[in-house]
């Protein structure tokens, strides 16, 4: 299986394209069947790739047979493969949810979904910075299109902000790329990492401006302060499966920050070593803070989930700022956890809203639920997981992050914020839960519809991941630690990928 590394990109691409062609394009059922098949295949191939990478080490895939740094290379290492697996798993679960009916309300849901996954996986796998830009754009344009799925004023307005902000971001991305190419003369990230170390003086200064522009761009995707504004409205207005899929979008930004600022501009970058760190510190802490305030202020479940995503983003950025192997490992674990848990909550919020009549997902008194036990159980799981309470995965991630701080100063800043963030989540989610599930007036709303089997299956997959992450926490954290070690090892992640490079 020498082509395995490209499967996570090709499978969604081909499925997406084929779904535009007859006979599949003609009816919904065959679209659904092929969408589920596609995501399942994707999941299987990602899992196999994960296994292979874990056992055989990093998989390099030189597209077109052109060796790096000249051609585009895919780099399936532990970090990228882990995230690819998460996104594939997420895709499968969300697709299961979607085919119960949320895929209606507009054309092209399935192909767009596939293209979105393709963009995400491509961004994770690529080893070329311009190709990263291309995949960013793929996932962005797909997200724009999905965001307006099933219409509505709110969606349009949120989409307008989201799209325009990201267009500005894309411009900055290209400015940054131009500067980096203009100083380094290469696009392969491993090659850049090697060349950055040799930069001196004014050229280094110029390269720094380019790098910092990339930080802004990735920060925008990761909802880093002050570029976080788009997130709450966008996530809360998107339709459920889309919002759930968006849960991994901020992670793409975070991932890119790790790739670019620990590999290229990391410890080995000579004059440009760790240039992002001071910025990351300040902005990460502010992001957690504002996210926490947002959590307190959330009037509805979807907004709350969105704000929780922001808190997790801030925490991940803080890990990036710490910049140690342990911190990266913590971030990786936390990314897996937070992606799946928040996606689960987004889906659940949709089910809840559908059974509450006019109250939707707002924290107000409402009609009783049609399926209180099912929904309550699901809510409890995702709430515990997101708060970071045992026995679910959030606590492992949280403890890993807390343990990752290295100096007293770091501890003094990060710990209180992370812990207060947890407390805010605890307070708000407990209020939310008691209000949603117990503060009722009247009977079940007449328009309430029971959750469908595949919807439950999709949510269950996402929620079950949380205890599994704890149960196998040892193995998983060993994996993330190894992944982090690889990322931080320039001999491994740069020279190792360029056989011709002279150390």
């Amino acid at each position, binding site marked *: 299986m020498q082509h395995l590394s490209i499967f996570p990109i090709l499978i969604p691409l081909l499925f997406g394209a084929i779904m535009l*062609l007859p006979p599949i394009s003609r009816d919904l059922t065959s679209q659904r069947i092929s969408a589920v098949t596609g995501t399942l295949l994707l999941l299987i191939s990602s899992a196999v790739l994960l296994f292979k990478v874990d056992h055989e080490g990093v998989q390099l895939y030189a597209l077109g047979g*052109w060796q790096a740094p000249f051609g*585009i290379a895919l780099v399936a290492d532990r970090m990228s493969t882990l995230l690819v697996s998460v996104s594939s798993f997420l895709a499968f679960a969300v697709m299961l949810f979607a085919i119960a009916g949320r895929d209606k309300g507009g*054309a092209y849901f399935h192909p767009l979904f596939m293209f979105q996954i393709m963009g995400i996986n491509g961004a994770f796998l690529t080893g070329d910075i311009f190709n990263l830009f291309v995949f960013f754009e793929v996932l962005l344009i797909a997200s724009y299109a999905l965001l307006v799925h099933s219409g509505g004023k709110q969606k349009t307005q949120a989409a307008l902000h989201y799209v325009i902000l990201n267009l500005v971001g894309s411009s900055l991305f290209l400015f940054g790329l131009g500067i980096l190419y203009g100083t380094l003369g290469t696009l392969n990230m491993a090659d850049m990492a090697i060349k950055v170390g040799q930069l001196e003086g*004014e050229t280094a200064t110029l390269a720094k401006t380019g790098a910092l*522009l990339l930080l802004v761009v990735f920060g925008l995707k990761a909802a880093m302060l002050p570029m976080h504004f788009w997130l709450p409205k966008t996530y809360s207005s998107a339709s459920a499966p889309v919002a759930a899929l968006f849960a991994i979008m901020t992670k793409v930004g975070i991932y890119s920050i790790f790739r670019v600022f620990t590999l290229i501009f990391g410890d080995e970058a000579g004059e440009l070593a760790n240039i992002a760190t001071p910025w990351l510190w300040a902005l990460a802490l502010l992001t957690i803070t504002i996210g926490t305030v947002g959590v307190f202020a959330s009037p509805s479940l979807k907004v709350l989930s969105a704000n929780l995503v922001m808190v997790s983003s801030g925490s991940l950025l803080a890990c990036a700022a710490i910049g140690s192997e342990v911190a990266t490992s913590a971030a990786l674990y936390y990314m897996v956890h937070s992606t799946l848990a928040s996606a689960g909550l987004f889906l659940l919020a949709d089910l809840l809203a559908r059974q509450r009549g006019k109250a939707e997902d707002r924290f107000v008194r409402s009609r009783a639920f049609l399926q209180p036990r099912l929904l309550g159980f699901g809510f409890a799981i995702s709430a515990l997981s997101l708060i970071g309470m045992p026995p679910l995965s959030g606590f492992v991630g949280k403890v890993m992050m807390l343990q990752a701080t290295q100096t007293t100063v770091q501890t003094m800043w990060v710990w209180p914020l992370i812990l207060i963030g947890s407390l805010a989540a605890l307070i708000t989610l407990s209020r939310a839960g008691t209000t949603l599930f117990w503060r009722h007036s009247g009977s079940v709303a007449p328009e309430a519809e029971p959750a469908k089997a595949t919807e439950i299956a999709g949510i269950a997959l996402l929620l079950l991941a949380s205890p599994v992450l704890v149960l196998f926490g040892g193995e998983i954290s060993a994996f993330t630690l190894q992944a982090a070690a690889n990322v931080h090892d320039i001999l491994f992640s740069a020279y190792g990928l360029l056989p011709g490079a002279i150390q």
Partner: protein
Amino acid sequence: MNTLIWLPFLPLLGVFVPLLSARFSRTACAFLTATLPAFALYLVLSYAGEIFQGERFQAALPWIPSIGLELAFRLDGLALLFAILILGIGLLVILYARYYLSAQDSIGKFYAYLILFMFAMLGVVMSDNLIQLWFFWELTSISSFLLISFWGHKTDARKGARMALTVTGAGGLALLAGLLILGNTVGSFSLQTVLDSGDLIKASASYPVIVVLILLGAFTKSAQFPFHFWLPNAMAAPTPVSAYLHSATMVKAGIFLMARFYPALANTDLWFLIVSLTGLATFLMGAYIALFQHDLKGLLANSTISHLGLITLLLGMGTDLAAVAAVFHIINHATFKASLFMAAGIIDHESGSRDMRQLNGLWKYMPYTATLAMVASASMAGVPLMNGFLSKEMFFTETLHQASLGSLSWFIPVLATLGGVFAVAYSMRFIHDVFFNGEPINLPKTPHEPPRYMRVPVEILVALCLVVGIVPSLVVGDLLYSAASATLNTPAPTYSLAIWHGFNFPLLMSFIALIGGLLMYHFRSHLFKFQSQFPANDPKLVFEGVIQSLSSKAQRFIALTENGSLQRYIFLTLVLALIMTASSLMKLNATAGQRPELPVDALTITAAVLLCISALATVIWHRKRLIALLTLSVVGLIVSLAFAQFSAPDLALTQLSVEVVTVILLILALFFLPQKTLKESSPRRVVRDLSLASLIGGVVGTICYALMTRPLDTISTFFTENSKTGGGGTNVVNVILVDFRGFDTLGEITVLGIAALGIYKLIARMRLFMPSSNENGLAWSEDKNPLMLSIISQSLLPLALLVSAYIFLRGHNMPGGGFIAGLITSVAIIQQYVAHGVEWIKTRVKLDYQIMIGSGISIATLSGLGSWAFGHTFLSSWFDYFYLPFIGKFELASAMVFDLGVYLTVIGATMLILANLGQLTTSERPVQKDND
């Protein structure tokens, strides 16, 4: 496997038993539920013998090493004591709840929660690993939340549960921090290692932080002042829950924690000061408040707070004997308080009220229950022959033997006695006010004795109070000794558990307390009157108020920052980018580098001036939209010319064709958007934006100049060297696009395809504002398809297609390629749409643009997949030269198939957008009114 590893999980397994067995009778459910805890209790007890001998059992399995978490359990004296309390009283509560809960209550759910809690609690006390301890600690918070909110439809239950969860949850987070620092200080998260490293810990700089954080956890959980307020509000829980959680188990978790870490953290001034003062304050305050409660459970809850304070105070005194006394009081308090809660539950259950102002003279109705309650109350008051008396005696003794407050240490025995007075008074009240004191007032039900088996748990507990009170060493001697030894991590000092120690000060203190308490109860009306002067504030309301004001402040803050203004968002993003780039750019000494510059010529200056003027004109006239569009076109034209001039013909061609399609799109949009906008930015805003824009423009220009004037070493020579030999084309840019970096191009056409699909979605549900006249009210021209335009467009189409074929075919070797060809074809088709209208085209051509996109992307992908057959990676290209008679040498390349995919996608995407947009307007065009 070691029994210890799975023992704590027995109850967890048991969580499912009640859920599954709830369909059977309530009794069967209760019985089945009890089996697993009973088995666990049996197992625990089977260890007792050896533990009493001083043994300690430990077992561990690796779990998550990276966070120091392992699955590690221990069973020593302290754990044994608590395990017995948890399982033993748990079993009694299961029995009791069987009768307490009504038929409407879901008993299966209740038992499940209860067992879950039991599991968590057992985990806490048996943990041999710090992280695992915290793991279970938090589980107790969660499961107690579920139990307190069991009647979630009641506001009180919801609020009480939330408050308990918030307070204990906050404490839990502090505890986590404390445990992590502790573990990092010691270098191990193994409990035994920590307990053995007391000196190291106390010597470390982080000791104060550790103590404060861990105590925060303990105090919140054990309702110590000032975190005590959640406990009375947790009384909204069903009484079995209170009997279990709020007497014997959960609230004792904090006490347990202090006892557990006693060897590691205690015996320092800091510890004494914090723990003893907190304990003392809690002890007094709880006792005082208890007296004024009208709610039976409220009285008991505050009494619990007081007793927990007492134990805390003991743990803070720093003598080994005080620690023994603390452990002893843990046992005693558990027995008498659990029985009292159950008694209160019986009274509530059988009379329908818990209000002592209504409850009077119940002796007549339920004498048996009254007797049990009176014995337990006596124990609570510290009456001799009861177990409460023994530990209180020890407490009084220890208050006399401590010196924690230096010369003010005598305060402690005095205040302890005062607390004792209150305790007697409220116990007296519990007895007299409920069982005597006249007749019941307006009770909902006529009280009577409870069912036989509902009394059994009370009887057992009360019996224990008596037995322990009379023959203490026989009953709990070993248990107490081993628990105390485990607490101290050394063998406990010698002490005597006799009832009678002769006439001494502690006895005097007990006597004073008894007499004082009786007197105080007798004159209680004065005290009540005094107390009524203070405004009663419900901590629940205060707490809710705090949370709500926090939330509304947060909302105001968020509304202030996230004001929904995109302009602000963009501004901030750009400001950040500016700060980041400018701050590093300032370190650049000289803008210009060493690379020689190209000479300037008139043509370039002309183009530059045209560009600048047009760009500025676009800005100045952006409110006159059509004109802005025209000037924008000029800018686009000049940009194309610039590409052409600086040796990028492909770019020039692409820019030109994209430009036209963009302009057409913008014209289409203009029809639906207002034609003009008023000036709406304030001068300040304009100046602000202008400054930012110029600064960023300046920075970009500077960087651009700095880059261009510096030499660059790139990988690009590889492309020029290998373009022909490796990629089979002489147009290097095109070879990069379809071969070296074909993957980018694949992504790029996918973007285009997706954009078209997205736009289709946007159009599909659009309700348009279509002006029936232009902005000045002039009706549109009636000539829909001008004759000349139609005819000429028809003639141009074949020519345009030919040109696009030409551009397509030569792309590999000369400027051109699939993308430009695709755009030319699209523009040619658009031209037909403009000239003839949608309907005309629709009837003549059956092109499915969606299929074109799908097949374009598919073809491009499949052309890349083809290389797999030859064992090459995705998108590996293939080309060869062939000879045919007449025709001669020609080249075939897989890149052309790829380019064909590009071509199709471009046409499909462009046309899907424009044709659909056009179609929509046509079908919805408003009827024209000539209003000129």
